[in-house]
């Protein structure tokens, strides 16, 4: 096995082009488990932790660019105001030790349907910045997840950042698990209000082969909110609207029965998570605008 140690993104991309089979390692919280348990014996590891650029974030033009290697702990302390949904999801990841190492780039690279960053990125309308020696491109999060642990990343590409719109409006993330810490989501849900666009982003995790948007629920709620101009003069949402939203979110899922929960439980839990998260987000919005 080789251990490759690039110091810059350019060096890393050159190495990845030359050795597409090299496995990138950032926080290592997924990769090392596979190595420790002999589930993977890559020909080379490509250590990304020496690359300063990947550990930086910047904001401008209403978008926050979060380097792929910014650990969850820093997203929580440094980006809680700008990206409330992502910070909420980050707070639920693993334990303090895991949050000090684990990264959104690694979450995307692993592309587990249960990854906590995914529903948030989908709801927020984020894009994944990927790069190779051929150039950089932005992949909308909706196009990034192709299947169980399969992504739009080409073999010579690395994830360099995520671009997350800074909406200034309420966002929520909610997940079901057996305890507070160290829990892989049984199912999860994220919502982001986009008042400027008169739109709502909603997405589910751990409830289908890939994280996915709940497009029918989004469209239904956008219609209800446009009706009577609720964005400009927000009032509490009628119960049937909230209930219908929950049903539509649940119907976006195609969950399976597994050790963590049954498909029926996941559908039910998603409708509850969606109702609650919408309630919290709309209450916050009403408080800010009304």
């Amino acid at each position, binding site marked *: 096995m080789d251990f490759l140690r690039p110091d810059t993104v350019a060096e890393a991309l050159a190495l990845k082009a030359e050795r597409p089979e090299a496995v990138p*390692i950032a926080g290592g919280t997924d990769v090392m488990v596979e190595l420790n348990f002999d589930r993977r*014996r890559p020909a080379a*590891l490509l*250590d990304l932790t020496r690359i300063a650029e990947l550990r930086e974030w910047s904001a401008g033009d209403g978008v926050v660019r979060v380097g792929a290697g910014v650990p969850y702990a820093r997203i929580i302390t440094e980006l809680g105001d700008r990206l409330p949904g992502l910070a909420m999801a980050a707070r639920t990841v693993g334990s303090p030790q895991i949050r*000090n190492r684990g990264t959104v780039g690694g979450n995307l690279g692993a592309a587990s349907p249960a990854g906590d960053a995914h529903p948030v990125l989908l709801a927020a309308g984020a894009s994944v910045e990927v790069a190779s020696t051929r150039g950089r491109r932005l992949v909308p999060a909706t196009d990034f997840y192709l299947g169980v642990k399969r992504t739009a990343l080409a073999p010579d590409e690395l994830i360099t950042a995520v671009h997350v719109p800074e909406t200034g409006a309420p966002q929520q993330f909610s997940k079901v698990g057996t305890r507070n810490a160290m829990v892989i989501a049984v199912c999860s849900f994220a919502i982001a209000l986009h008042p400027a666009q008169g739109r709502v982003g909603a997405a589910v995790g751990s409830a289908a082969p890939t994280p996915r948007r709940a497009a029918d629920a989004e469209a239904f709620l956008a219609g209800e909110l446009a009706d009577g101009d609720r964005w400009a003069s927000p009032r509490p949402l009628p119960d049937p609207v909230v209930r219908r939203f929950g049903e539509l979110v649940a119907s976006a899922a195609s969950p399976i029965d597994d050790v963590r929960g049954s498909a029926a439980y996941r559908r039910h839990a998603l409708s509850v998570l969606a109702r609650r998260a919408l309630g919290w987000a709309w209450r916050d919005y009403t408080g800010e605008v009304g």
Partner: protein
Amino acid sequence: MRVRLTVNGEQRHADDVWEGESLLFLLRERLGLPGSKNACEQGECGSCTVYLDGLPVCACLVAAGQAQDREVRTVEGLATGDPARGDRLDPVQEAFLAAGAVQCGFCTPGLVVAAHDLVERVPHPTDREIREALAGNLCRCTGYEAILAAVRLAARWKAGR
């Protein structure tokens, strides 16, 4: 490969390190520092917790090669003096003894490092903050009550120092 790093303030190196090896293996098996324990090798138990560049991490989930040029502090590096000569342990270690927070002791080194980090950062931690800080460390023996008491005590001692 050769890996060079700083461990508990000393420049150390190890040769013939396997590229897929963990920092935990490097510390325990190559550098003779068995304080950090190996239980799960999957980040679940926290018994391998060490400081890496000042942040508590699971040493089992850091590739040894990623520690190149970095600074590691293990439980062995917390006591400021030589305990064999009667020098003082870190207040967190003293507090674990005083509160009876150690039974079989397997989880203790990881908990001591995690608790050390908390009381260094947060002068008067609430119980919620203590529970949150120790959420990545499992103990099969104590039921945690004595551990919480030890951390409260350590925080008081550090604050009064």
